[in-house]
């Protein structure tokens, strides 16, 4: 039978998840090698049409594959609605972005946990990436939920798939609490830092990056804020607008 309604864009979801080689905890050798294979520069491709076929091969793309909106007791999926065009040799990794409602703070129940896990596993399964990323900026009271979620994810993802997790910059500075986060890579986001902006920029300039071991491997920056450099860290770059080659040139090191 043929549907009468219009097609609805929806992200593929996993019926089954990786069952082989599940390893609890971060830092497996296979995950480390998946991360090592990732380019040193990754562009975040947010929820908008992105044509990145011009991107040189030394850079990769971390694209929002889906957003899970947590509202009260519900988890609502907003699958990627816009195309991403990349060359076949471009490294891509899917990002699952979690949006916690302010109006109806999430209950952080088992269903919401399951929804996020399902999306992450589906993203890992669907396009065969070696790295998947979770973007979930939690409030203080939500930290235990994130810790448990990431631990569960790490257990359930295949051992060869690395788990990357974004972090507020402050979590890698004075508000450090992520030591037990079972991620293979933590990406402190040194942009949109609001009241912490001055202090953290001063710190990064003085120290050449975050100094906590778990925070040194990667750094998130934005095209529309002052340059932040960190020695040796993989850079994830956020653009508030669709990427173009001018924006790419703008973020190149001087």
């Amino acid at each position, binding site marked *: 039978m043929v*549907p009468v309604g219009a097609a609805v864009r*929806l992200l*593929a979801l996993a019926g089954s998840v990786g069952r082989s080689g599940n390893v609890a905890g971060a830092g497996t050798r296979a995950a480390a090698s998946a991360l090592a294979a990732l380019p040193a520069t990754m562009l975040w491709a947010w929820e908008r049409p992105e044509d990145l076929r011009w991107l040189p091969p030394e850079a990769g793309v971390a694209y929002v594959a889906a957003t899970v909106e947590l509202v009260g007791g519900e988890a609502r*999926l907003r699958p990627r609605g816009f195309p*991403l065009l990349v060359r076949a040799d471009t490294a891509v990794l899917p990002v699952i972005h979690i949006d*916690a409602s*302010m109006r109806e703070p999430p209950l952080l129940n088992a269903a919401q946990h399951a929804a996020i896990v399902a999306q992450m596993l589906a993203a890992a399964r669907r396009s065969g990436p070696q790295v998947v990323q979770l*973007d979930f900026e*939690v*409030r203080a009271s939500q930290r235990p939920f994130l810790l448990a979620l990431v631990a569960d994810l790490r257990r359930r993802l295949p051992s060869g798939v690395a788990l990357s997790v974004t972090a507020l910059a402050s979590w890698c500075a004075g508000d450090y609490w992520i030591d037990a986060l079972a991620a293979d890579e933590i990406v402190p986001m040194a942009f949109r830092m609001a009241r912490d902006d001055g202090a953290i920029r001063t710190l990064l300039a003085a120290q050449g990056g975050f100094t906590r071991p778990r925070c040194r491997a990667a750094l998130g920056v934005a095209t529309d804020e002052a340059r932040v450099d960190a020695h040796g860290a993989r850079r994830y770059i956020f653009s508030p607008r669709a990427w173009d080659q001018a924006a790419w040139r703008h973020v190149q090191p001087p």
Partner: protein
Amino acid sequence: MRRSITFRHAAACLALALSTHATLLRASGGDDFSENPFMPQFHVAAAELQAYAGGKLGIVMPSYWRVYQFLAYRALTGHPLAQGELAQLGVRGYSVGPAAGGYDYAYSEEKNGVGAWLAARASVRGAAAVKVGVDTDMGDYTMVVNCPADAFDRASKTLAQRIEQGGQQWAAVWLAAQDAVFANCSPQLPQMRGGGGAPVARPLTLPAAAPAKAPAWLLKDLAYQRAAAHFYAGRFDEARAGFTEIAADKASPWQPLGRYLAARALIRSAAAVPNAVLAPTDARVRERLTQARGEMTAIAPDYAPARRLISWIDVRLRPDERRRELSAALAVDVLGPASVQMLADYLVLMDKLEPSGLLAAADPMTAWIGAMQANAVEQVGRGDEAASAQRRLAALAGARAQWDKRHEAAWLVALLTNARKGDLKPAETKAAAAVKADSPAYVTLQYHLARLALADGRVKEADATVSALLDKPQPVSTRNRLLRLKMVSAAGADAALAAAARIPAEAGGEAAVAEGAKAAAAPQFDEDLRAHLEQHLPLALLVQLKPKLAASEQAATADLAWTRAVLLGQYAVADALTDEVARERATTRPLYARYKAAATPAAKREAALLILSNTPELTPHVNGAGADNAGAYWSCESRVSGDDGMDQAMPAFVTAAERAQVDKEATQLRALPKRSSYLIPLMIDWASRNKADPEAPKALHFLVASTRFECGAGAREAKPRNYSKEAFDFLHKQFPKSEWTAKTKYYY
């Protein structure tokens, strides 16, 4: 990628004891989104929405999302929404209509219809188990639901009919064919590597050929199933040909659907054009959609789904014209079920326009929304102030031209919303003042008249206007916004402080959740109270007014006044506050006793130095004077200034002499270097003279610790020194055996 919201809650502050600042909540989802719970900047509070849509607008804010501007326009132009109309719209944040399906749609067989279909299949004896999916990969990192629930529903109903019609034998044949159709819904594809713009070749599964002696109905169904299989497999030319043949076959039970489905195959083929979203003007896309539109138009009079798809096509094919059509209808028509999609489309189409395009739009509602939003506070980030100022002037001119031409209240609202000091002509002011209280525009216009009067220095007039509005029932968010004006316009301190207590317009925020119902009953305060206390009162007046503040605000105010007093050398003022500052600080209470025992200014200064060194939260909270020092002094926290500038405005009750004193004290405090540069040299000097005092290594320890992530706010130093290291070195050299030295492992 951060959201933040400032939520000030007195009880929460008490619980935190030493915090004098609003609780900064950080949630996920990013993009710097924040809203004031007392007067949400971007949406109408849920509890106020019905009245708002019905014409009791309160103050219409330029920063409101467009769906609320739409509701305001309707009310201002004489078409407020009835309760049923609003309910149908299902306003959610900045959008309307039901939320998209749950996260589990694609694999919840209950939600996506697969479960019911599998159950229906079981009615055919011996039917082998099959696996059915609903979504397929488009090859560009997006997925589509290829086979929606109604496809499975229709199949289930048809199967029941065919069992009755042809018995189990022919039903089994029918089912095998239908299984082949649905095998195309979610085929297994090779792992994707790179979108590249090339279409993904999907495998095709076709029903088997009709067996000999198949009944006529089965032959007709098989023709339909073959077309459907092509459709789901993305073979749209073949699908279209099949459905076109069916449309011409009057003997087929599917004939009435043939033309519609042939046109749908065209639409899907347009959507499948590589890069179609990135290049909607692609000739192939336009050609296919244009043809589909023509075919849908021909059948639309008798078929509602075709009408809906014409609108779907128009949004993509002729967006400007469609926006104008939608605007014209939505502005005046009674809203019904079809209006939800119309409004959703209208909002999306407005999003495609630049602000200047909105303002210049030919349809009045779009132009009005553009004028209202021209100078709105940015939802995300700081925005481009120069561009925003230019947009405001353009909007002011545009609104004035429309007002002069039409004399409609909506345009007067847009005009005053964009007016700043000296912008309004006397006739415009007079016209705004003449609008009657029963008009939906009344409160907004009166608010802006008061705001502009305040800006012009006509404070009494502003205060009278605000007071008159406050004397009448108002929506909570409007009342809170008026109270912010009242704090500035009130002639006396008592009236100003009375205006500080607020009720949140909307429940929410981490503090409220944590504190529960008990907190909800406590007095609550927006940022403007603390901004006025910190920025606009001289020390003497601050102390004088402190007893009049709510209990929850007194501790923070005592801390502020005590800190300023000792830094300014006004020890008599500090003396009177010392017990109160010490009350909740058990671990440092001996230091306050030492301060109280000090007999001379020099001794008090040294005792205060110890307290400040041990207590980093004691800061003078002086706002910086320039871009390099924009945060509150001795800390990098900055207050959300609101969207009306009221917390930056000097309250009217502060006299000229007191204002001069405010400036003098602020100048003195701003001359101090950053905290560590001020305190550490003094402490090293004191410690070198008091080596036997156990407080010396302790104070140095806390000073070193506090230099970690220290904010750089403070007067510029000619030759900045690393005082953290100097204190660290001094501590380790002079007090090698102290427990505090052992705890001081790093400098910063």
